[in-house]
């Protein structure tokens, strides 16, 4: 591929990722079209438009230099943290529970922005941290603080899913930064000991009930287990080839809750079956493999950690969501990237994509816009 009629700026884009991703978004849009009862409004069109807008944003981001990312890391982190606190306070003052800012064409949840921001700030932190200190408390404590403060604010919203996503992104960056493995093993062991103690002594009855229902959703088919049960029915009844486009009874007759957001995978699987589900998983595999490839080829520590953290963030979304709809994880309210209808989630994931695209470019052309 030496010379081509395609302009170099176009040819340079990572089409091996963009093409499958676009296919996934269009597929998601078709599912949303069906979920709306065969209408482009209110979800299908906005879904595609948002993707187009945020793809443009990602392309612009991809031209930002490494220095700009490094420079912006702490200001962005604290700006998002302040936004998070601000929204929390506004919600408390207003007496309501508003966790978002209205930007006109979409609503923005600062907690969503925190997911890439935490990865960015930790990458910057470990990049600057002298190598010998990585294995000492000076590597652990500040990083832990950077994760814990926003996670605490999100968890009191209460939004357990997003808090977990923030923690997961941060912990993955810490893990890849080379913190001693025994700390993670010790942390895991502590978690295994604390979890049952917390279950029996720390949780309210209703919270304990939710855990039990997650273990056995059929025990409460009309209550909290309803979501999982109906989602499994939707997926299971789809079979290999699905019920056909527009024929999903679970979603159209409103048995499936949140059929256009958190449970969009179930909506899709009911109409497209196993084949549709494997296609979605395949696209995620391609995108994530592309991201891991970038991380491995990344020229320096900051880029490495940043790229791997962004991949982990997307991965966490996709994994928790699909596990949830298939009854392998509790219902925590995490949307499926690129398929669920929702501006904040689309923006977060496209920021991750844009960052990865930028890192990809740093390897080819170390200097970019600055």
């Amino acid at each position, binding site marked *: 591929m030496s010379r081509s009629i395609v302009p170099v700026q176009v040819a340079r884009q990572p089409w091996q990722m963009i093409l499958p991703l676009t296919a996934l978004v269009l597929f998601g849009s078709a599912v949303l079209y069906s979920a709306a009862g065969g209408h482009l409004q209110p979800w299908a069109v906005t879904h595609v438009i948002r993707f187009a807008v945020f793809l443009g944003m990602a392309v612009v981001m991809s031209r930002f230099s490494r220095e700009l990312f490094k420079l912006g890391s702490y200001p962005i982190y604290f700006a998002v943290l302040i936004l998070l606190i601000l929204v929390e306070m506004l919600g408390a003052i207003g007496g309501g529970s508003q966790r978002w800012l209205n930007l006109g064409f979409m609503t923005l949840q600062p907690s969503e922005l925190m997911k890439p921001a935490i990865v960015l700030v930790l990458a910057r932190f470990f990049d600057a941290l002298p*190598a*010998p200190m*990585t*294995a000492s408390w000076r590597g652990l404590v500040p990083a832990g603080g950077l994760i814990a403060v926003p996670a605490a604010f999100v968890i009191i919203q209460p939004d357990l899913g997003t808090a977990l996503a923030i923690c997961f992104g941060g912990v*993955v960056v810490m*893990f*890849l*930064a*080379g913190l*001693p*493995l*025994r700390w993670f093993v010790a942390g895991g062991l502590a978690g295994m000991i604390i979890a049952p103690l917390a279950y029996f002594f720390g949780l309210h009855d209703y919270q304990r009930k939710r855990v039990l229902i997650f273990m056995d959703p059929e025990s409460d088919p009309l209550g909290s287990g309803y979501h999982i049960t*109906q989602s*499994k*029915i*939707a*997926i*299971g*009844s*789809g*079979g*290999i080839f699905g019920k056909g486009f527009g024929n999903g*009874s*679970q979603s159209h*007759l*409103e*048995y499936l809750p949140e059929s256009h957001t958190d449970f969009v995978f179930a909506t899709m*699987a*009911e109409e497209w*079956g*196993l084949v549709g*589900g*494997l296609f979605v*998983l395949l696209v*995620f*595999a391609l995108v*994530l*493999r592309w991201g*891991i490839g970038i*991380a*491995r080829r990344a020229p320096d*520590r900051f880029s*490495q*950690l940043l790229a*791997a953290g962004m991949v*982990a963030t997307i*991965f966490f979304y996709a*994994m928790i969501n*699909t*596990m949830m709809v*298939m009854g*392998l994880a509790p219902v925590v309210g995490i949307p499926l990237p690129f398929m669920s209808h929702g501006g904040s989630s689309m923006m977060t994931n496209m920021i991750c994509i844009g960052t990865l695209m930028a890192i990809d470019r740093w390897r080819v052309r170390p200097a970019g816009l600055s």
Partner: protein
Amino acid sequence: MNWKAIWRMPTTSPALLRQSFERRVVVLGAIQGGLGVLLASRLAYLSVAQNEKYQLEAESNRVNLTLIPPRRGWVLDRNGAPLASNRADFRVDVIPERLIDADKTVNQLGQLLQLTAIEVQDLKDKLDKAHGFQPVEVKSGLDWERFAAVSVRLPDLPGVVPQRGFSRYYPTGPSVGHLIGYVGPASAEEYEKDRNPLLVTPGYKVGKDGMEKQFEELLRGTPGARRVEVTASGRVVRDLDTREDVPGKPLHLTINGPLQDYAARRLGLESGAVVVMDCLTGDLLTMVSMPSFDPNSFADGIGRIEWKMLSDDDHVPLRNKVLRGLFPPGSTVKPMVALAFLEAGLSPDASVGCGGGLRVGNRVFHCWNRRGHGTVNMAKGIYQSCDVYFYHFAQQIGMEKIAAMAKRLGLGQQFELPVVGQSYGTVPDPAWKMKKYGKEWAVFDTVNATIGQGYMLVNPLQQAVMAARLASGMELMPRLLYDKNPPQPKSLGIPQEHLDYIHQAMSDVVNGPGTAGRARLPIENVLLAGKTGTAQVVGLNISSGKGGLWKHRDHGHFICFAPFDKPRYACAVVIQHGGGSGAAYPVARDVMTYLFDPGKAMDVLLEMEKGWGGTPQERMAAKYASYSAQYGARAPVVSPQAQESAAAAADEPVAPRSQPEVRDAQTPPPEPVIEAPTLAPAARPSPAPAPTIVLPQ
């Protein structure tokens, strides 16, 4: 991979960190890949291995099967006219389980359906008692406007089910209440027994009493079904298919509907029973117990006002007196006793002198006529109802033979009838008394029994059977189910000349010098033969039995058949506390007249009903109106067992359950000489001189 190196991180350097990163990224990638494979397998497991299960569940989500209650089979009289039919109507039910705010919904329904305060109170009562799955009827028989008013507001009324359906209709209302019974929503117990989803379908009713209960299976039919596609919130998206219901089979009874209604109305304000039997087949043409209840108004359960009305009424409207009422039969047993005498070889001409009483042992038993009847043979003993004649010869013949004849003619017997229950009473004999009380039979026991007092207890059905068997000489069995070719009854083996003698004497009761001259039929060439009876309820030291407290008055009895020379119909009438047989035989006369000339009988009745305040239905409506004006929604709550079965609440028979031992000779009951009009109990004049109790000397 060098796990040891990962584990034991040496003093770090940028190069080592880079190595560590590369290793750990591979680990992370492997974990991601592994989870991806896990997700794909889980997806395949759900959609392939468990596909069938989930497809079924999705179908059961999507498709809602609504049962269409089957139309109940009609109950027909012998001529095919409906005694119970179905009426198309609009109805509204609620399903308590699906109510979100019960009080709000009830009040809203009250407004939309224009319910009265009483109806709203009754609805709340029913909701309090209802179990989650049982539908509760709000109102049936709605007009289109009110039905539509609820239907269009359904989204705001969760748990409310408006329906077009059929409801049970009894054209003659109270006249068939005890006979046919009534229908109502299935109770929790009934649903426990029969886990049929039909039982909890709104609008479906099961038989609660009488024929409706006995022939539930036959009348039920097969429900139809409607398959609809519904959303999670229950909104119907479209109809998938509908299967029509199969109506229940009709039940053909031997009852003569118009006669049943006539008899019920003719009883007027009295508490009593009328049974009419066909003397050729044993078909029961009429089986009436009054006062009664209107089965039409029981279909939605018993409301507070209704319950208050029923429980205040000392005439016990809920008790079927034909089967459940036990009465001392009084002198109506005399033809039967006479037949026993004839069979024992007593000459009908054997006479005794009646001086107004007879000494038995150290007691004097009085004849109802204190002045005495002079010389009395068997015929005179019957038509003048002379007690002394029977006292005298019963002692000669003995109780065993009399009791045997009583049982042959149907007294003390339980018949094979499709009814909820029968109280069969007592025909006493020495063995019975020994078994029951451990005492020897005394002569005065025989004396009491021969005039239908003492231990003797019968129900009105048995009296009708006795009349029909006396008339025909056949072992007629009472029948309720119509059959074009009824079984040929066996002969009782009583010589025809004996029967002819008794028939003549019974005809003389009415058409000759007897005790019921006013019972003569106003029909040419049809002579009625009958026998009066007056049964004492309390000792003469308490009441004369003629006036005073209603519950102290004598029972009035009359058994009869017509035409006397070629018996076709037999009839028994009991008027509880009617003050004597004078209350009973005019009823029997008019009912028998109706069989031969309905127009003539109807004219008499219509004239009487003017004085009574209309037909039973009209009187009940007026009473309901005055009760609701007086008590409103403050009437006491309906007792739980009444909710289940109104009949069960009134199961206690008229006579006390534990029959007291008769220790003393009872003074014979008086026979009224002048006919007492049956207009109103208070207006009845006090007849005939009342004999007083005579203490043993």
